[in-house]
Every structure is written in C-alpha cells, then in structure tokens.
C-alpha cells in the first residue's frame, strides 16, 4: 500500500533553545501514502519537531527534505568551521529558513495541539480562508471583484470539502459554537483545504473519548485514501497509534530511542522504560514465596 517514494525526510535535526536541547539529532522519514506516528512522553520534543518541519523554528542544525527537495536547512557557525577544516563539505552548505506560509504552499499542512480556529469566522469561512494561498488574483482584482470566477470556484471547492467531511450542515455556524469533536474535524478540513500532500496532525485525538477516537481512526484512514495523502501524526492515544500507524518513531528527551512497526514498538524495552520508568535491574525472584509455588505446580 505504501510505496517507497520518500515524501518527508528529517536529517540530523537538532533544535536548541539557549541551553535546552529540545530535539537532539533526530532523523526520520515518511514515505508516500504512509501514516507515521511520533510518540513519546510529554516534553519529549515532538511538537518542536513539527515546528521545525513547518518552518516555525529554524533548526540549530540539520536539514528537512520534502519530495526530494531540501526545504529547511541550517547549521551552527562553529560546525561549519569544522566541516570546512577538511571533512564533509557537501552535506550542509546552505542556509534555508523559509517562513511557515512558504512551506504550506509546497504542500505540507498541519493542525495544532490546542485548536487554533479563527474564532470570529463561520465554519465555511474558516475553510475558505485556508484556500487564500492558492489565489492568483491580486488585491485590486479582488476588491473590484474581477476575480469572481476564481471566487466562485473556491467557494464550490469549500462546499465540496465540507460535504465530504460531514460539516456542510453547520457551514454557517460560528466555529466556536461547534462541539469539540467537530472543531477538531474542522481544523483538519481547514488543513485539507490547502491541497497538501503531507498532513501533520498534532494530537488529533486529544480530549476525545474512546468512541470519538475510533471514529477519528476511520476518518484519518479515509482521508489518507481519498485525498492521496501521507500523514505524520503526534499522538498519545496508544489505541489510535497502534491501530493506524504504518510505522512509529519514539522520542524521549529530544532523542530518537526506537523506531519500527507497531508490533516492534510495543515490545521494545526502551520504549516501555521511557514511559513507565526504569525497572529495577537484576531482580532475582528465586527467593520469593510465589516462585516456589510455581515450581511446585
């Protein structure tokens, strides 16, 4: 189902804020059609990694590739000296710091951990505004309505999108009057309106009960197929993660500690230790009462 064409590649990404290393030499990949999850305890640096991909932060070091093109790159000056002192000069030779809107134009869209809808706008307008980036008309033709064809087309596309995602009935409501689950869905609809190839979901199931989470699981699978997307997801709901992911990366204290299929991750001791804390080492159960009982059986 997933081809091996590489959509997203993060290469040796380090993100440092003053003395705090939020992301430590992270490398990961998302291939076409895959649903890849990024998991880890709170504060592990997952949203920071997202923010590097979407251009909110320029990484302290490393590069991000999208569809085979380098879209983000940075390197600390000191490292540059070391590189030029005789080692690998070809790896980092540039300085690419695009703003988030440029990255969205390339085809990467995202949702936010705390829903960031435009509160004064209706459901319809929230999605319509997300289509603004694809406009070819300038402010004059827009003001004098010379762009009425483009406007009509975008409105039709918005209506279509809302119908597909089951939001058409509430399209004229203020987005703040929607229940929480629908607001999350609206945020995903808004991201889809930008015509992305890669969708970044930041904790889409946050605050949802098991039923809503199950609905969301089907929903994400459906849009992956219907919209020909690749999905890169941060999530804490393990049932959603294990159910839907093709591959999982596990982050702790900013560094990658494990990667693999859901089965591999579930049985990985490092992952268990990271979430539950270290088990006591060298525990010898032979002198405990129940051990003898077992032997007796």
């Amino acid at each position, binding site marked *: 189902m997933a081809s091996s064409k590489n959509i997203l590649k993060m290469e040796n990404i380090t993100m440092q804020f003053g003395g705090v290393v939020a992301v430590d030499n992270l490398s990961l990949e998302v291939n076409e059609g895959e649903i890849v999850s990024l998991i880890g305890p709170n504060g592990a640096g997952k949203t920071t990694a997202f923010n590097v991909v*979407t251009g*909110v932060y320029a990484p302290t070091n490393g590069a991000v590739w999208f569809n085979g093109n380098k879209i983000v790159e940075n390197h600390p000056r000191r490292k540059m000296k070391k590189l030029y002192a005789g080692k690998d000069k070809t790896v980092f030779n540039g300085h690419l710091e695009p*703003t*988030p*809107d*440029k990255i*969205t*134009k390339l085809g990467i*869209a*995202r949702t*936010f951990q705390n829903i*960031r*809808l*435009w*509160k*004064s*706008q209706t459901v319809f*307008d929230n999605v*319509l*505004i*997300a289509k*603004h*980036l*694809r*406009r070819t*008309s300038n*402010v004059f033709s*827009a*003001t*004098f*309505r010379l*762009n009425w064809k483009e*406007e009509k087309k*975008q409105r039709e596309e918005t209506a279509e999108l809302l119908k597909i995602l089951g939001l058409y009935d509430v399209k004229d409501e203020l987005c703040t009057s929607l229940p929480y689950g629908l607001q999350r869905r609206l945020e995903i609809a*808004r*991201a889809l*309106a*930008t015509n992305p190839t890669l969708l970044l979901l930041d904790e889409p199931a946050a605050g949802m009960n098991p039923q809503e989470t199950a609905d969301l699981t089907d929903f994400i699978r459906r849009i992956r197929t219907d919209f020909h997307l690749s999905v890169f997801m941060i999530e804490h709901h393990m049932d959603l993660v294990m159910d839907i992911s093709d591959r999982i990366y596990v982050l702790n204290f900013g560094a990658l500690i494990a990667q693999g299929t859901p089965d591999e991750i579930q049985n990985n001791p490092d992952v268990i230790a990271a979430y539950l804390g270290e088990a006591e080492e060298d525990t010898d159960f032979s002198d405990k009462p129940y051990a003898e009982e077992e032997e007796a059986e």
Partner: protein
Amino acid sequence: MENTNKKRDLFIGFGLLALLFIVLVILEQTVRPTSILFTVLKKGAIYALVAVSMNLLNGFTGLFSLGQAGFMLLGAYTYAIFTIPVEARAQVYQYFDGGAIQFTLPVIVAMILAGLVAAFFAYLIGLPVLHLKSDYLAIATLGFAEILRAIFQWDKLGVITNGSNLLRKYPVFKTSTFYFAISGICIALIVLLINSTYGRAFKAIRDDEVAAEAMGINLAHHKRMAFTISSFFAGISGALLAMFQTTIQASQFKSAMTYEILLIVVIGGIGSVSGSCISSFLFIACSEWWLRFLDNANLNFTSIQILRPGFRKVVFSVVIMCIVLFYQKGIMGDKEFSIKGIAGFFKKLKSKRNK
C-alpha cells in the same frame, strides 16, 4: 433564498444612500451656508473616512497603529503643495522665495497623489515595524508620526513645505456633497476590500496569526498591504481636511489627533465600518455643536463660573471614559448596520414591552 435577501438588502442600502444625498442637496439649498450643521457634516465625513481606515488596520487586521495623524499630514501637505496656484506661491512661500515647486496639478490628481505619498511612506515605515508586538507597534508608529511632523516643520525643507508656516490659497470645495462623495467612494472601496478574500485573510491574521501563517498566508506581505492601503485612505482624508480647513500647518497634526480618531473607532465598535461612520458624526457633532451650550457663560448657578470654555471637552472626555469602561464593545460591537439588525432591534423592544 439567500441571494434574494442579499439583493434586497443591497437595493435598500443603495436607496438609503440615494436618500442621504438628496437630503444633503436639500439642506444645502435651504439652510444658511454658515450653519454649524455643515461643519459637522463635512468634518464628520472626513473623520468617518480616516476612522474607517484606522478600523481596517486595528479592527480588521489587528495591528494597533497610532500613526494616522502622520499619514493625514502627508496627504494634506501633498495636496496643498501641488495645488497652490502658481501666482499665489510667492505670497504663501514668502520666506522661501516662492518655493521650489512652480507648477500645479489638477485637483483629482493631487488628491490621488496625496493618498499615494502616504501609502509610499507607510510602505517604508512598515518594513521594519510591522512584526512588532501590539504595544511596541503602537509606540513605533506614534514615533514615526512625530518624526514626520518634525521633518515637515524643518526650515531647511521650507522650500517645499513652507516650514512651520501655514499653507493656504489652494483650491477648496464648499459643498458637503463633495466631501460625502469622496468619503463615500473610499469607504465603499474599503468595504469591498474587507468582504473580499484579502479582507478575510486580514481577519484571519487578527484572530490567530500563527494559524494564518500555517495556512499559507504570508504575514509580512499581508500586514504591509493592510498598512499601506489604510494609509492611502488616511492620506486622502488628510487632503479633504486641508480643503475643509482652507489652511494647514504641520503643528496641528499632533498625536492628539490620532487619539481622537482612535476614540471614534472604539466608540463605534472595533471591527464595524458602519459603527465608525456613525460614531464619527456623533463625536464631531458633540464636540463641535451639541455640547456647545456647556461653554456658554450665561448659564451659571453659583458664583463660581462652572460653565466656561473647556467644560464641554471635560464632559466629553468623561462620557468617552464611561463608554470605554462600561461599554467596551462600542455602539455597534463588530456588527454592521443592516435592515435585519434594525428589525431585530424593534422586535426585541416589542417583546420586552409585551412581557
């Protein structure tokens, strides 16, 4: 169903505007020309335009800028400088040997140029300043307005600006309909912009600029656009003000003028165009006309003269403070004037009375 309602509202809207113009023309013919009514109407129209332009920036894009007085200054001076008749220049620029500019432009061209000059300076100022947080942006734009004022009062540039002296003898228009027409056209353009896709992008920036950027809206580009367009119209309103006052001087474009415009916007409702228009007329009417009696020395109750010049402004300021403190949404909140709104208002009154 929706479309017919919209068309009906549009017709009613046009009907009201036409009615307004007819009323104006009738007033011009009947009431004596020196009546305070015309001062209020003209000044109200001018301030309505600059208030709407400020609302575009503050209310619709969320950029708290306090530089309007500076752009009005640019517009007013551009208009005046390029329309003073060549014969009169020697008299006006008496300390500067007639001034450097010895030609005139037609009035409409000069007015548009006024807007363009203001927009140009807005573009330059916006480049470094628009990414700052709201308080800092306010102070930075205030600072630029003050710098502009100092530059225009500088003697060395007097060959163009006439230094700290008045500029006068440029062509003016006497009829209120002219001011209403120009303001009306400009405000209509702003409304068209607000309801277009770019206007929606501005509102998205106001509501959540992080999300707007994530959805592909380039913040720097759009903020600069809003700033430039708002200043263009502020420049035109400056040109209108120059015509209204028949003389202009840089020293009058102080930050106090910006504060008055800001207060008009707040009273009318941040985010409501019709609110700004209504409150502009109310503001001007109160400060120039209706509260005049408070300055009248013939009405005193005690031996201390309470009612004397200045009392009017004190009462006025207190009223404004009350509105700011208790009625923060302003007159219209963020809604626009609509027939539906008025109908709804009366229905509510009726139901309250029936209870």
